[in-house]
């Protein structure tokens, strides 16, 4: 291997400056970068910039009703951070199914988003939470809603020289209901066959706001806007949950691969959302 240059800046400005005019790659936890490195023969970067020493990219806070997670927040943080556990337990439920504990210690939320794969597990719950991605780059700062972040298979809106600084979402509030399911061939260390997430905010017996999303069944994880609309403003029972689930199925466009057939995935795109919505709202699933 020809090797590459290496820089470990300690500030966001330092990281942006290091990237200027170079064929660079950022690295955080390294859990995507190092396994990929073995196949990178031609596309090798000139320079690898380690973000793991930039303290400004660390930490979780709650401010103005918004949960803010630094880019370096790990999947282990999702399981242990008090703010996340209290405000968005769906992220902990997702993380418990993400790889295994050792990978979780290094896997960062920004790395998972940049990975951009259909099976990036943190994406469905973050979509259901209506997260926003904050970026810093040569052209200044900007924020992109997560549902506009992916532009295709492993493609994102991130421009050359830009880094993710933070991922944030409005705290769904006390008493919100949620559900997450990772359908996979093993209990751990498995790539998702279908991922589904639901976050439901209630008011007086009705669903005030819904966030429903699917992973692994489109080029990038998607939010199911139709399903959300079906639920919003209504007192949800089995019939509406079923209608929303059908809308989820309609929004999915799965493919065949070694893990499952498209046909099976399509079916699960209805089964899983229905189950999650019903379980979250305490609707008996007898007929489902």
């Amino acid at each position, binding site marked *: *291997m020809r*090797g590459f240059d290496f820089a*470990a800046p300690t500030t966001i400005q330092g990281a942006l400056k290091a990237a200027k005019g170079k064929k660079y790659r950022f690295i955080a936890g390294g859990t995507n970068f190092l*396994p990929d490195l073995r196949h990178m023969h031609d596309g090798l970067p000139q320079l*690898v910039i*380690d973000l793991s020493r930039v303290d400004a990219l660390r930490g979780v806070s709650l401010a103005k009703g918004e949960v803010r997670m630094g880019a370096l927040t790990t999947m282990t943080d999702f399981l242990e951070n008090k703010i996340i556990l209290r405000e968005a337990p769906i992220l902990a439920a997702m993380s418990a199914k993400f*790889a295994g*504990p*050792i990978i979780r210690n290094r896997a960062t939320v920004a790395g998972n988003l940049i990975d951009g794969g259909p099976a990036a597990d943190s994406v469905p719950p973050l979509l259901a939470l209506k997260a926003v991605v904050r970026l810093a780059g040569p052209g200044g700062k900007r924020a992109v809603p997560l549902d506009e972040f992916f532009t295709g298979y492993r493609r994102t809106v991130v421009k050359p020289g830009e880094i993710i600084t933070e991922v944030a979402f409005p705290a769904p509030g006390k008493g919100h209901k949620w559900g997450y399911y990772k359908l996979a061939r093993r209990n751990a260390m498995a790539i998702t066959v279908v991922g589904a997430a639901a976050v439901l905010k209630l008011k007086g017996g009705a669903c005030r706001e819904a966030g429903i999303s699917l992973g692994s069944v489109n080029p990038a994880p998607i939010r199911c806007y139709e399903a959300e609309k079906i639920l919003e403003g209504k007192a949800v029972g089995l019939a509406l949950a079923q209608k929303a689930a059908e809308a989820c199925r309609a929004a999915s466009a799965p493919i065949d691969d070694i893990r499952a057939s498209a046909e099976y995935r399509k079916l699960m795109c209805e089964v899983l959302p229905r189950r999650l919505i019903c379980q979250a709202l305490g609707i008996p699933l007898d007929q489902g």
Partner: protein
Amino acid sequence: MATATKKKKAAGSAKKAPARTSKRAAAYTPPKKFPISFRVNGSEVRAEAPAHTSLLYLLRDLGFTEVKNGCEAGDCGACTVLLDGVAVNACCVLGVQAEGREITTVKGIGTVENLHPIQKKFIELGAIQCGFCTPGMIVAAYELLEKKPRPSREEIKAGIAGNLCRCTGYVKIIDAIEAAAGEMASSKGRKS
């Protein structure tokens, strides 16, 4: 005569090499090396390596061969070490990222003369067969027991989910971790 020429060639090769090689080879420069100083099991270590060297290769090249190479892809856990007290797959960390950090391998958790309870129970309860997974398994178990001193068997399973064992079938590994937790709890009780 032959040996003499050979010697001469070898001595002068550094200077003459470019003239004899193709353009492509002449353009080759060996990858830049980076100084890395860090601590391994409490000792200061200074090394030099290209930036693409993984922490796994760096440690093994330095003689810490208790850190095993099973897959180089984060899948098997054989390379598990503690980095500043956190369990990581050494194959998924760049060596240069360890600059200034503290690494603990299975030998830092306990030595042959002074075994850690986890190591003792692995031996006593037959949780080791070929032993290839053991160094990583013990480091993973160590972190698990730091976080959850009395885990259930289900929690132990989840705690070693990132470590593959091709021999034992895991049952004895789970037994050993459970027994170690018990021993650590009772010795802690005795001390206080």
